[in-house]
């Protein structure tokens, strides 16, 4: 585990490399360093299958010289290697073109206190291998005790603890530690020629927040067996209810369309739409990097700007794009603290929940599809078009009737945001992009 002494070592290395960059000719330089330890175990059919334990360190550098940018990274932290990489980067920068928008941000005078974010759980690095292996065993054992489960892809426990350090020539120096642990199981039911499969997981910063083996196993079993003996259905247009993981997928797609990088590149159908209505008034979307104990939280972004809460869409109106410094300058905006490497990334990006329960939403459909899984990558940010393989449960008279598979669902994100009829109350922060159950008025289903 990275001790405070280890942090000091990384901090002083980062500061030294910033000075080295400056004396090597860089006008501006930013150095990020990470040091982490990970443990992972996969258990399958009652036996340990894989056990991984490792430590690794990494460096990322950005250099600007005469308005020209070069990046470098390395997993080799030998001083000679790092100095060579920085000198190469300064030389390479000269061959790029001058870009008036390039450069490090101005330092913020309101840093976030990382202790208030509660991102380091000492219980995670203290977990013994035996305990983690036992948790994976227990999860799979409970799942396999259900006779309807015919095979297992296994249960896994993983844990990670790491330290991130950032130093820049603009005077920024920051560090924070973060832990992470996850428990999951993936199952099959049915005969070889009529297989269905699904999984469930929990991943959290704090070990105490993790769902129990019992909950994860029971949820995975229920999610798997509900798909047994699916029917094929006709091609038609019907209301579609998205389960939370499915709405999260749509929200991930929305993120790629409101990312400042995609917007200034005109690679999003939402470019040039700031201040416009892009959805109905049920749609409020927020990015919040300050929520304690959550996976998408951190005190500062990869450029050292403090995390913040940004309302992206308020009651259907597009208020903000999420930007790093470069995208913000291109768009005449301010960074929202979403720099992630050389691009833009979400913090905790979520759809504001409504009041109805998932049962009430399903109950409101005379006929419709409850979307439970998708397959494939048919999302196009340039047009907003959606077309994906889908698995679901058919809804009739407000109740689940039977599973359906081998269908596709298609539509357009712009239309979908205007056609959301209900937003559920069941928001859970399972990852950095999260959303509750929603009901969309009508979408195209392709089947027979």
């Amino acid at each position, binding site marked *: 585990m990275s001790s405070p002494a280890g942090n000091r070592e990384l901090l002083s290395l980062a500061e030294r490399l910033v000075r080295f960059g400056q004396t090597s000719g860089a006008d501006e330089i930013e150095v990020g360093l990470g040091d982490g330890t990970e443990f992972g175990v996969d258990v399958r059919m009652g036996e*340990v299958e894989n056990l991984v*334990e490792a430590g690794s360190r990494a460096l990322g550098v950005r250099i600007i010289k005469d308005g020209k940018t070069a990046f470098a990274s390395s997993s080799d932290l030998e001083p000679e290697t790092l100095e060579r990489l920085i000198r190469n980067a300064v030389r390479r920068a000269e061959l790029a073109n001058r870009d008036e928008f390039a450069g490090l941000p101005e330092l913020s005078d309101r840093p976030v206190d990382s202790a208030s974010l509660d991102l380091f759980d000492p219980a995670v690095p203290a977990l013994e291998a035996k305990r983690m292996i036992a948790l994976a065993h227990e999860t799979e054992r409970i799942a396999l005790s259900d006779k309807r489960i015919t095979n297992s892809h296994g249960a896994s426990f993983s844990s990670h603890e790491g330290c991130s350090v950032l130093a820049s020539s603009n005077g920024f120096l920051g560090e924070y530690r973060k832990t992470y642990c996850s428990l999951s199981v993936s199952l099959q039911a049915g005969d070889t020629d009529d297989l269905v499969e699904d999984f469930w997981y929990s991943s959290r910063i704090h070990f105490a927040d993790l769902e129990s083996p019992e909950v994860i196993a029971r949820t995975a079993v229920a999610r798997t067996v509900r798909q047994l003996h699916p029917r094929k259905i006709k091609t038609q247009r019907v209301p579609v209810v998205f389960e939370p993981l499915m709405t999260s997928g749509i929200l991930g797609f929305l993120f790629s369309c409101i990312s400042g990088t995609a917007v200034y590149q*005109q690679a999003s159908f939402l470019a040039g739409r700031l201040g416009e209505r892009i959805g109905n008034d049920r749609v409020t979307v927020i990015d919040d990097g300050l929520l304690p104990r959550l996976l998408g939280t951190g005190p500062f972004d990869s450029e050292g700007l403090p995390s913040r809460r940004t309302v992206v869409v308020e009651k259907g109106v597009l208020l903000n794009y999420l930007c790093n410094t470069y995208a913000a300058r291109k768009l005449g905006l301010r960074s929202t603290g979403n720099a992630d490497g050389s691009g833009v990334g979400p913090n905790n990006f979520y759809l504001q929940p409504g009041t109805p329960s998932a049962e009430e939403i399903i109950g409101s459909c005379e006929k419709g599809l409850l979307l439970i899984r998708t397959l494939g990558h048919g999302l196009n940010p340039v047009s907003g078009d959606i077309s994906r393989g889908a698995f679901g449960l058919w809804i009739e008279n407000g109740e689940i009737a039977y599973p359906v598979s081998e269908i596709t669902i298609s539509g357009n994100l712009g239309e979908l945001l205007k056609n959301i009829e209900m937003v559920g109350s069941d928001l859970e922060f399972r990852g950095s992009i999260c959303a509750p159950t929603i009901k969309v008025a009508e979408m195209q289903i392709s089947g027979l």
Partner: protein
Amino acid sequence: MSIVFEDHFHFGPDDLRRILDAALQTGGDFADLFLEYRVYNSIHMEEDLIKETSESISLGLGIRVWSGEKTGYGFTNDLAFDKILRAARSAAAIASSEGTTAAAAGLIRATSPLSVYPLREAPHRGDLTGKIGLVKDAYAACQSHHPAVKKVKAGLQDQIQYVTIVNSEGLLVSDARPLVKLTCVAIAEKGAVREYGYSGGGGRVGLEYFAENLSPAVIGREAAREAVQLLDARDAPAGEMPVVLSPGHAGVFIHEAVGHLLEADFNRKKTSVFWNKMGRRVGTSLVSIYDDPTIPGFRGSYAVDDEGTVPSKTQLIEKGVVVGLLQDRLSARLMGKTPTGHGRRQDYTDYPIPRMANTFIAAGEDDPAEIIKSVRKGFYADQFSGGQVEDSGKFTFSVTSGFLIEEGRLTAPVKQATLIGSNVEILKRVEMVGSDLTFGLQTGSCGKEGQDVPVTDGCPTIKISRMTVGGRE
């Protein structure tokens, strides 16, 4: 000309032996070491500017230990010897026998008989100005192809990966793998309609490839052509209909529908729909499928796999019958088979698993024009953006552009649609296979269990009698 191997570890045989001994100190059956040094360079151009370049170094060592069916794995990028021995002990934790296992007495350096990297100017050695020139050429050709093209992005990525594999059976083998790709993205606009086009090329080849085989200008124009064509495209049809797959890019169909589910691990664990179908018919007699990691210059090729096995062309399906699996060492050992050289890993932080390399469906005898002519009303899938499969055999692939087929002719261009089917049903609906085997773009990667590796796939024109097309009309 081949690339001279560079050793960045400077371990002698005694050092390697000490690491193997540490890995086997708890009685593991087998141990191997994967020593990797990789340099990755990239250039990115947009808005008429070379915006950034980057250089990345990846250096590290992975240590694997087997105990029965169990795998222990440790890795480190700190090459201090005590850190390496600690990683070896982490991997050794998988085994718990009383006695220790002795590694083989002597390491024997092996060399692969394969010559799969045809090149004169190794990409990682190429000077940056010349590489920037290639990017600018693709960019300019794309931008000037049509006035509707409003945004262009072009980039070049190259890498050199030096790997050394050492194992407790005495194997010591190295490989120096070059890789390059030049890619271009176009965004075209007409009124409120905005569309995207993509093209690219490369492989395990030298920079001369872009002068002699595939010019940057062709890559740029092809990206522009696709984006512009989509401006007038209508929504794809919805429902079940005859589907014709274009030659080349549609190899993703075989990759998803067949390749993944014949990776040995899924069959050993009986999670693949194919596990009980060895020797059985799963498709029409027109379907013969291979994976060949030995095709010179291809993205998916290598002289040895990431376990040191010399790969061989492997037949998976022969005239509709399952005849082979893609084997790594672990599955081969547990199944009593021979490794086929398909044990691959993304990098030193991952243990190897069975993977595809260059997967293709063999050419048939049908005239491609006759295949299209045979369809009265259907869908022609032209350009693809990837796919996904699950172990049950349900698979999808995404079409970025296509055409309607009406009365045996390609008519209106159509845009994005996902196609879905169940492999055991779709393979039985392959009605015609063209004589025009073509490989797709040399720019693709495949993801499995969080590990990305470069692959290619290929196929001739293929007709599937019925498949669900997920359009909007």
